[in-house]
């Protein structure tokens, strides 16, 4: 058994490819912002919010696994850590959204004009300057949380006594409790700022939960794909067992259900209330192609993965689980598109549209690929910098034993 647990070289090829594709995609998207600014920015937001979900979700999972313990947490930790270390890159990728705020968010124009009652009521909360200040604040706080958890984890690798390693684990656990509270609050408000304000008159109290759960699902799916790739190669093949995949598969199943539960709650309550300030959100999204996307999400973001994940055998096979995980990731992207696509474009908010033609642009494809490539390149870079498992963790041996059991 190798003592260093270095990530396998097979990642290098993936990394180079990711940078190549990502670089081209990002450059094309940036060029698009001059050709078709609005469409390109909406595509950029789609790509950003999808990949940010995996990056921020990594921090969420990191906090969660420290709080709950469990063998799955030990094997997934380094992947989640690498995800959480992409926050600086995500900030750079966020810059076009800051510069494009007036092209992307119609409320920013209305706030400037001072003509919209609801936006006026919200006062400084809906001022572009404060919106940017808040965005920077979200990034800084999330970065700091990720920074300290990563730092202690690295120190744990270098700890020379089990006592010291245990202490570091204890410290991370202690911080993660309040950390989760902070994380959920931040994700709630950033999901309101970045996504809910696309429809500035609409509101839903469950919105934050939808993103917390959705992003955890995104990151679990991404991690499963990465772990499945690593599990066939040294050194992870000596560590990870079927039972680890089984456990993570169960968590995926739970989150698929939670996603559906939250969305159904939101839909049912808004539908039954039938209030003018809420219903347009779903009215627009249930007509024509948008309605078809909604149904696709019900069947393929929920029903299909749900039924498959019920099977025990399926969850225990890394490759199968990874294939499904990648499929769910596409559905996550579609889910984000379902929110962004029909939302009003510049000048449309005051029209109170109840029907929106189906609109998709090349940038809705190019930007997610480009951002994904750059993000993934950085992710692999971070993943390689550390041993692939926290081998010094006091729970490490237990976790291996758990994985080999049945």
């Amino acid at each position: 058994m190798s003592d260093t647990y270095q990530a396998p070289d097979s990642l290098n090829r993936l990394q180079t490819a990711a940078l190549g594709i990502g670089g081209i995609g990002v450059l094309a998207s940036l060029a698009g912002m001059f050709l078709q600014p609005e469409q390109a920015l909406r595509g950029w937001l789609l790509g950003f919010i999808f990949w940010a979900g995996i990056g921020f979700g990594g921090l969420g999972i990191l906090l969660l696994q420290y709080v709950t313990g469990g063998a799955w947490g030990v094997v997934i930790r380094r992947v989640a850590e690498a995800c959480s270390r992409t926050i600086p890159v995500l900030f750079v990728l966020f810059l076009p959204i800051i510069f494009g705020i007036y092209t992307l968010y119609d409320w920013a124009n209305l706030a400037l004009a001072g003509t919209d009652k609801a936006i006026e009521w919200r006062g400084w909360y809906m001022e572009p300057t404060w919106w940017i200040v808040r965005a920077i604040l979200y990034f800084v706080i999330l970065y700091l949380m990720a920074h300290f958890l990563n730092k202690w984890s690295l120190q744990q690798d270098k700890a020379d006594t089990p006592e010291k390693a245990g202490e570091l684990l204890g410290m991370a656990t202690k911080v993660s409790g309040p950390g989760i509270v902070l994380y959920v609050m931040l994700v709630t408000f950033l999901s309101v700022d970045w996504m809910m304000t696309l429809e500035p008159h609409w509101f839903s109290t469950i919105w934050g939960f939808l993103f917390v759960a959705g992003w955890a699902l995104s990151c679990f799916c991404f991690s499963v794909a990465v772990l499945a790739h690593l599990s066939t190669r040294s050194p992870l093949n000596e560590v990870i067992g079927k039972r680890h995949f089984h456990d993570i598969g169960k968590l995926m199943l739970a989150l698929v259900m939670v996603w559906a539960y939250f969305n159904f709650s939101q839909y049912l309550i808004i539908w039954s209330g039938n209030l003018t300030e809420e219903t347009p959100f779903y009215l627009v999204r249930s007509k024509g192609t948008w309605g078809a996307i909604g149904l696709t999400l019900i069947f393929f973001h929920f029903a299909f993965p749900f039924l498959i994940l019920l099977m025990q055998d399926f969850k225990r096979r890394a490759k199968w689980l990874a294939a499904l995980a990648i499929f769910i990731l596409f559905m996550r992207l579609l889910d984000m598109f379902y929110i962004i696509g029909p939302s009003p474009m510049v000048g449309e908010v005051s029209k109170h549209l109840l029907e929106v033609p189906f609109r998709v642009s090349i940038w809705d494809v190019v930007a997610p690929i480009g951002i994904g490539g750059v993000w993934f390149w950085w992710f692999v870079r971070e993943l390689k910098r550390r041993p692939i498992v926290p081998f010094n963790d006091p729970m490490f041996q237990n976790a291996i034993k758990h994985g080999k059991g049945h």
Partner: protein
Amino acid sequence: MQDVNDIVRKINPPMVEGDHDYGSVTDKISDITLKKRTPFGWFIGFGISFMVAQLLLFTTLYLVTNGVGIWANNQPVGWAFPIINFVWWIGIGHAGTLISAILLLLNQKWRTSINRFAEAMTLFAVACAGLFPILHTGRPWLAYWLLPYPNTMGMWPQFRSPLMWDVFAVSTYATVSLLFWYVGLIPDIATLRDRAKNKWFKYAYGLLSWGWRGSARHWHRYEIAYLLLAGLSTPLVLSVHSIVSLDFSVAQLPGWHATIFPPYFVAGAIFAGFAMVLILTIPLRVWYNMKDLITDTHLIYMGKVMLATGLIVCYGYAMEAFFAWYSAAEYEVFMMYNRMFEGPYWWSYWLLILCNGISIQFLWFKRFRESPFWLFIISIVVSIGMWLERFVIIITSLQRDFLPSSWGMYSPTIFDWTMYIGTIGFFFALIFLFVRMLPVISIFEVRTLLPEAEVKRKGEEH
């Protein structure tokens, strides 16, 4: 220097303390029902609860003879104490199902010595809860009209009403919980049957244990049945209180109509339920000297669950307040302002925040989590808080109707109180009977926690 194993043991402490083996665990738990003389304290506790339960009996009689007018329900506050108490009791029941089903699926070993107890509590709480809507119909003998059955009256339930969904959700919940509890009891009842000396007890336990012999085939079927019931109960933990929350949120009433209601109510239910489990276990383990089976670790874990679910509930309060403001809808804004500052019940909101929001913050600290005394106090405060939560949601939203000419006030009558307090007596009386007659802790499941239960390869030491 500490060994790695010491650290692991510190993170995952053993769930059974003391020097126990299979025999001693069985003795200890079964003796409570079979050998020990009924303790004097039991008679006092049962006596008081039973007397308090008479309030319920009396109020029900008075209610049936005089009609629901004896309560203070009025216009616009048409839903008042009956539904507050219904939701409160149903919520308390949730801890039992969570502990028995979800923690089983999650392989959480600490569920084992508290699940039996919590499940019994669930059943009794659901029984108390069910009384309120049935009695609120005013003619409880016609309660079966709620069920969709072909009849000559041409009546059919309104399936679009969440109150109708409640009928199905709660009755399913009660049925599955009862089955789950009873199936889990069968092997233990058989143990009691084998150990009972009294002829009548032998006969009664024998009847209840359905001829359980403990053969491999029995165990095989038992394991499958139990796992299936756990799978069935898991969605019920979420669905029952989600549907209860829809009673309110499908309406257009500001203060009721919020999309976060389903998860927020579910968390609140588990929160209240764990508070009640703590209220019951903390004295129980002292009176019956069972600190080695229900250890401090159990209490600490329950405290942590209470903190986590309590924080979700607080998140719900925060979101309600934030989005009421963010919505910029005048009714939403007014409702929140009325609830928090201007309305006549503003004190109930802040009392709620104190009970559910502030009190649980102490659970962040080890000192409070590790002290049964403080856990007990916080649990009582939380139980009051969760009752207040329903009071705030229901009363403050209803009493300010859309038109100021329809505004009203609500103050409960003596019968509202006697009915509510009566159910508390009824609940505790049932708990006392349960403790006396059935094994309060699952004997055979605790045995699996002992070191002897671990399967070892040849030559491996214990």
